[in-house]
């Protein structure tokens, strides 16, 4: 009779390892089928690419929001710098010859500049505010990904409960399934959604609204 060595136990040869993994996989597959979990897990696994799309959507939306804010800030700073330089120059013009400053229209031009830049600043601020809508949109998507993770966890826990020895107590977890879709993260993949406000308006118009 051959004696098994420590190296046999701790480091099985590659074919042995593959054989054992294959056996375990087969047992798991059979157990899942017998317990009726195969379909549930298959369905959940089917949602994983969707979760991947949702996480990509979050990355895209937060990136776009950051870009939008930075662009607006950069534009506003250029205009602000121009205003500060012009104000300094105008002060010098006024001190040198106040009458000429008015007569040449320099003061009026400066005031016109101030007015235009103030209006532009207001537009920048509005756009920066609008860029914060990513919080709402990504929040909804994150909630759905979290719900998916909870579903997977619940199914795995249920599997553990079914297969655990009788004396082991495993806590149960209830998964929440949202029934509303939330933001459309991949509009190309679905035909029953609108992708912009004009499509909403067209749909409502077709209904007589």
């Amino acid at each position, binding site marked *: 009779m051959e004696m098994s060595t420590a190296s046999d136990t701790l480091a099985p040869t590659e074919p042995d390892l593959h054989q054992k993994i294959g056996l375990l996989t087969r047992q798991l597959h059979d157990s899942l089928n017998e317990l009726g979990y195969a379909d549930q897990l298959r369905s959940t696994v089917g949602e994983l690419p969707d979760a991947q799309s949702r996480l990509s959507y979050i990355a895209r939306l937060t990136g776009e929001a950051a870009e939008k804010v930075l662009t607006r800030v950069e534009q506003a700073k250029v205009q602000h710098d121009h205003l500060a330089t012009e104000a300094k120059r105008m002060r010098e013009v006024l001190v040198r010859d106040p009458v000429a400053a008015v007569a040449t229209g320099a003061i009026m031009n400066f005031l016109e500049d101030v007015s235009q830049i103030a209006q532009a600043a207001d537009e920048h601020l*509005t756009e920066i*505010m*609008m860029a*914060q*809508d990513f*919080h*709402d*949109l990504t*929040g*909804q998507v994150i909630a759905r990904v979290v719900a998916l993770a909870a579903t997977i966890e619940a199914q795995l826990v249920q599997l553990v409960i079914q297969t655990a020895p009788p004396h082991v107590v495993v806590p149960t977890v209830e998964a929440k399934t*949202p029934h*509303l*879709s*939330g*933001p*459309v993260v991949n*509009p190309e993949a679905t035909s*029953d*959604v*609108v*992708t*912009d*406000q004009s499509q*909403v308006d067209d*749909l*409502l118009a077709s*209904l007589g*609204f």
Partner: protein
Amino acid sequence: MANALRFLIVDDFSTMRRIVRNLLKESGFTDADEAEDGVAALHKLRNSKFDFVVTDINMPNMNGFQLLGEIKADEKLKHLPVLMVTAEARKEDIVAAAQGGAAGYIVKPFTKATLEEKVTLIIKKAGL
């Protein structure tokens, strides 16, 4: 006078409530209150006077569709125009909102011009 109208903005995200509130203010509608879901909105609507409701759909406790249903089923509230502002972009949701009595539907993300246009149109149609 339009800018004397009182708005109730309903959304579970405070950032979105602030955005809508600020946009309405920029459009001249300075009187607005906020609620974080349909339950809180109904409580405010039944205890105070409002002229216009702007609501999200996907909210905890009571969603926008349920709120719309409650408003339209309430004799004292059913006259209120309800504008849905939501990320729900499925056609069946838009149709359901219209059939449920919503005065308008805006999909997020939206622009200041879109909100202003819809609010103005609804006010005009409702004769407010």
